[in-house]
């Protein structure tokens, strides 16, 4: 059995001082939205964590999730994590290709049977296995084969978590999510289009250091990052409450930073960490930059009305159906009036 060093040993070997390590733990606590009092526990957990194996499978995806992760907030932390984990298989990032790459995947699966983490981005086409293949193997076959000995599966991005863009109307490839196929292993969904890089890393770190699945909501998303809506954490919320809304892009209200509800913001029904963790090392997030939230971490967000249609827009059906209802009303009214008039005549006759 190959000796696997702990993360602590790896860091020490890299010449990271204890102060540097404490700084890393503080950043990690921040990333995981854990209180500063947890830092000593994190330090202990990380120091003693074994170096795990990670297999990354890319299916019907745009590679945005990988891009987001590798452009991460604090490359040093990411670099440490990726040095600490053993990324044994990743199409975009690995140097190997073809049969050698597949051999590496199988070797990692065998060596770490029961302990490796499978990360998936992209949806899986069920319409025809030929729609998306790697080395001649269909996505479905590769997924079901790889998860057999996995400790857990992390579905990265809205495509893997919920079907995403390929799964949007009319879903020509029959795209499905990881959780629709993997039933016997724990599945963690980290949705977003793409997910916030810090969130992706934090979920990985949380699993790797504490060795357990974080608390998940009903869509399988870690509550630590998907427990609150954007609306509940948005800094523009006071404007919503005061009734100050931007009416169009670039109007006075928009320039003054008012609420974007009327421009289609999906903040109230979207659970994600964008309003607190933000993007690009905490620089900003869509609403702060003046664009309404798309709701990209919610299932089927592509098919939920328009991005620029306010949430409270009513859907009344076509004018034709309403006209039909009106006509039905007239018809019923005439019938009722006819019956009423007959009764009236009867009474007048009787009188």
């Amino acid at each position: 059995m190959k000796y696997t060093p702990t993360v602590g040993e790896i860091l020490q070997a890299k010449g990271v001082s204890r102060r540097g390590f404490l700084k890393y733990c503080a950043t990690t606590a921040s990333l995981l939205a854990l209180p500063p009092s947890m830092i000593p526990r994190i330090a202990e957990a990380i120091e003693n964590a074994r170096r795990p194996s990670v297999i990354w499978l890319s299916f019907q995806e745009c590679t945005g999730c990988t891009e987001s992760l590798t452009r991460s907030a604090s490359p040093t932390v990411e670099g440490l994590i990726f040095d600490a984990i053993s990324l044994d298989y990743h199409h975009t990032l690995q140097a190997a290709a073809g049969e050698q790459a597949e051999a590496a995947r199988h070797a990692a699966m065998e060596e770490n049977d029961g302990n490796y983490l499978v990360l998936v981005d992209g949806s899986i086409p069920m319409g025809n296995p030929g729609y998306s293949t790697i080395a001649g193997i269909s996505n479905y076959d590769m997924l079901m084969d790889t998860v057999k000995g996995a400790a857990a599966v992390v579905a990265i991005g809205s495509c893997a978590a919920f079907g995403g863009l390929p799964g949007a109307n009319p879903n020509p490839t029959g795209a499905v999510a990881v959780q629709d196929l993997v039933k016997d292993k724990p599945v963690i969904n980290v949705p977003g289009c793409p997910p916030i890089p810090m969130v992706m890393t934090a979920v990985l770190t949380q699993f790797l250091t504490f060795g357990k699945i974080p608390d998940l909501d009903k869509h399988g998303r870690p509550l630590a990052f998907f427990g609150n809506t954007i609306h509940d954490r948005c800094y523009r919320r006071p404007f919503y409450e005061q009734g100050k809304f931007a009416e169009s892009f670039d109007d006075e209200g928009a320039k003054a930073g008012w609420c974007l509800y009327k421009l289609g913001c999906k903040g109230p029904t979207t659970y994600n960490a964008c309003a607190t963790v933000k993007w690009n090392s905490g620089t900003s997030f869509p609403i702060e930059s003046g664009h309404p939230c798309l709701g990209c971490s919610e299932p089927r967000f592509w098919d939920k009305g328009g991005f620029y249609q306010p949430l409270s827009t009513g859907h009344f059906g076509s004018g034709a159906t309403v006209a039909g209802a009106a006509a039905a009303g007239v018809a019923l009214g005439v019938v009722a009036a006819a019956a009423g008039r007959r009764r009236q005549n009867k009474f007048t006759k009787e009188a």
Partner: protein
Amino acid sequence: MDLLEFARGPALQFAALVLVAGTIWRIVGIVLLKKKPDYSEPRGPGGLGAALKVIYTRAFTAPPFKQATLYPKIMAYVMHIGLFATIFLFTPHIVFFEGWTGFDWPGLPNSVIFFIGVATVVSGFALIIRRMTSPVLKLISNFDDYFSWFVTMLPLITGLLIPVRAFFRYEDLMAIHILSVALLLIWLPFGKLGHTFLVFITRGTTGMVFERRGAKT
């Protein structure tokens, strides 16, 4: 389709269609009835002017009844004005109407709407308690009265719960709120809630008939 999508979509659509059909049904059914011919000499014109005048003057209590009806009148005005404000002057509702009519208008701040909403609920409960305890009202009230009150209060209370949130998710509270509105819209044309549109016809007709007969309007 989750509950919120169902509420916002098919449920509301169906309710809107029932509202349209039901309202037109009732109006047509009433307007097409025979008018009892009045063979007496007209003592007044009894036309549209009279109709409009009485629609307006009926808002004010006739002097002999003022004192006795002061309390229910105030409660009813608070409830009706409160309903108008919470439905039509709350910005997310205005956005809803804008999607439908194309018009929008300024709204009141959310905190003001919330306060008005609470006042409306209080007045509504004051009125239902009066209905249940007053000896006369108790006798003459039926299912229609109580159910109409219930379907009016439900959207109000569920709407107020949304900012309060407690332990519930926004989407669940919103779905229940919209479904309760759908229930209101479906019931509206058929029961006593139909007074929403019928009151103008009845008052107007009363005005026309009375003025023709020379009664004070």
